């Protein structure tokens, strides 16, 4: 596969409103107030399932435009943390804010998505019965109420936008194929494409390169890096090579709380991190 640089024009379109606290006309979510430069604030979050503590006093900040990688052994609480951020799991206590004004613990999954947090699941989930084009169309940032959907027709501008993303994720040729017939890697890209269509301020990506070929992984790394300046990204990944190629800042989770934070080099040399990963 050809690892093409992403066309700048497309990125602008995809990034759309990713500029700080911008609000473009017909969007649903309100602009995100990020006066203090922090897009995501998690403070002293606790989650327990029947006595098992999945997250203990987790405190984490993501800055605007940052690309943060989260690593940690299995069961460290990475997916639970994403569940808390997207409203799927309610924390027992603690503070979770998106920007300055959105209290994530009081919002539903839908509200959080509309406010501008996009999430890619561990296992790629796309709408299998719909075509690739339709998948992107549904994800596109627009009024998503019932009435609007009943009357919706695509404007030329919206079509162009979908076409651009199709080119970016290199699914142009399969635009009319049902998404269920795509390969695993293609589904991963389609899901990333859908995230782009949503024009979120913060992207949560759970193991985005699992099942990708080396070339695809390389391409994804470049894609993420180019997104980073305008969006904030949080990437959970086990593939250290991939982490090394994208991250400027890495957080290590262990037993539900932050063990270490810093550049990849720093954390890799951290005594405690080595202990956790290699066993004592």
């Amino acid at each position, binding site marked *: 596969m050809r690892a093409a640089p992403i066309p700048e024009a497309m990125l602008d379109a995809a990034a759309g409103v990713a500029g700080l606290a911008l609000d473009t006309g017909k969007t*649903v*979510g309100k602009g995100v107030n990020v006066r203090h430069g922090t897009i995501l604030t998690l403070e002293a979050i606790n989650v327990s399932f029947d006595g098992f503590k999945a997250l203990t006093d987790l405190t984490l900040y993501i800055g605007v435009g940052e690309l943060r990688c989260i690593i940690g052994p299995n069961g460290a609480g990475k997916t639970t943390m994403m569940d808390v951020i*997207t409203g799927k799991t309610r924390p027992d206590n603690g503070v979770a804010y998106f920007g300055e004004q959105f209290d994530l613990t009081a919002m*539903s*999954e*839908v509200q959080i*998505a*509309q406010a501008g947090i*996009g*999430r890619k*699941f561990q296992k790629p*989930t*796309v*709408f*299998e*019965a*719909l075509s690739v084009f*339709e998948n992107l*169309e*549904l*994800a596109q*940032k627009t009024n*998503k*109420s*019932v009435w609007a*959907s*009943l*009357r*919706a027709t695509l404007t030329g501008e919206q079509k162009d936008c979908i076409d651009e993303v199709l080119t970016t994720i290199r699914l142009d040729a399969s635009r009319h194929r*049902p998404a*269920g017939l795509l390969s695993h890697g293609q589904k991963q890209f389609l899901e990333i494409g*859908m995230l782009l269509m*949503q024009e979120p301020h913060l992207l949560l990506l759970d193991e985005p390169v699992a099942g990708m070929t080396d070339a695809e992984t390389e391409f994804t790394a470049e894609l993420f890096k180019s997104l980073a300046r305008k969006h904030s990204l949080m990437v959970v990944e086990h593939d250290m090579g991939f982490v090394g190629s994208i991250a400027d800042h890495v957080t290590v989770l262990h037993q539900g709380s932050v063990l270490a934070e810093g550049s990849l080099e720093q954390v890799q040399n951290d005594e405690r991190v080595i202990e956790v990963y290699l066993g004592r």
Partner: protein
Amino acid sequence: MTMPLNQTLLARATAKLGPQVSLALGLLVLAILVAMPLLHLLPADHALHVSAYSLTLVGKILCYAIVALALDLVWGYAGMLSLGHGLFFALGGYAMGMYLMRQSAGDGLPAFMSFLAWTELPWYWYGTSNFLWALCLVVLAPGLLALVFGFFAFRSRIKGVYFSIMTQALTFAGMLLFFRNETGFGGNNGFTGFTRILGFDITAAGTRAALFIATVALLVGSLYLGFRLARSKFGRVLTALRDAENRLMFCGYDPRGYKLFIWVLSAVLCGLAGALYVPQVGIINPSEMAPTQSIEAAVWVALGGRGTLIGPLLGAGLVNGMKSWFTVAFPEYWLFALGALFIVVTLFLPRGVVGLLKKEKEQ
């Protein structure tokens, strides 16, 4: 949890069948359906005369076809299998029945109330002698019930088999309620013995023909509505909802609103079908709400092919045609045949007859 169904749109189905062929077939069926009531108006000894029996039978099946279509909208497209659509059908029927009972009772009380020694109409009978208000009830009764039930069910994310059984419990409860004499809907016997509708004799050939035409019109209207819905973005959201509800939520769609809209729409369509069914068949009683009736509707849809628009119509026609034949020829064996149909369709025809036809075409 649902199999990927690729034929979500009529457009696609017809594209594969060959648009001209299916269009021609559709027009032919429509022409026959329009001709039937007109032929009924011919004198009884005319060679082309269509008997009242046949007209009623076909009219009845057409009403069932509307129910099948309505069920397909929620099951085939949105992935929610309702086993309680008979309740909405019966509610529409009862609303129309109230009007018909008032018509035949004149200024007095309907006969069954006199039997119970009631001296005045219960409050919910108020205004039912007015045809327009009865029509409003036909829409409102199933619509509001669906709205309330759906609101709570979708809010708590009841889905899959949970949803199916809850709807079955709902129609079962409705049946028990209507069986009681005190509920004020004629108990066991329901409503029957209608004489007039809008001042016309209900058994007259002209009235029968008009009711039949109205049913055909409703069917065509529902079909058009379904077609438009399936082709709209709304239809695509429903399909997405069926296949990956979580993904849809993280895309920023609130599934509750979508489910509620299609659910209520489907209930209202059923109610309208019920309202046309009652004057044609001449009786409505609580057995229409029996869980068996509703689950049978599911097999119409499954046999025809869910997620398509013609499938349910085809299924309703096939099963009911078979039923009419069996109950005359081998009444003992109809339930065996129906039971076997349930099993065979789910095991061997997951995409129904329409899927089968399409496969033939592709090969």
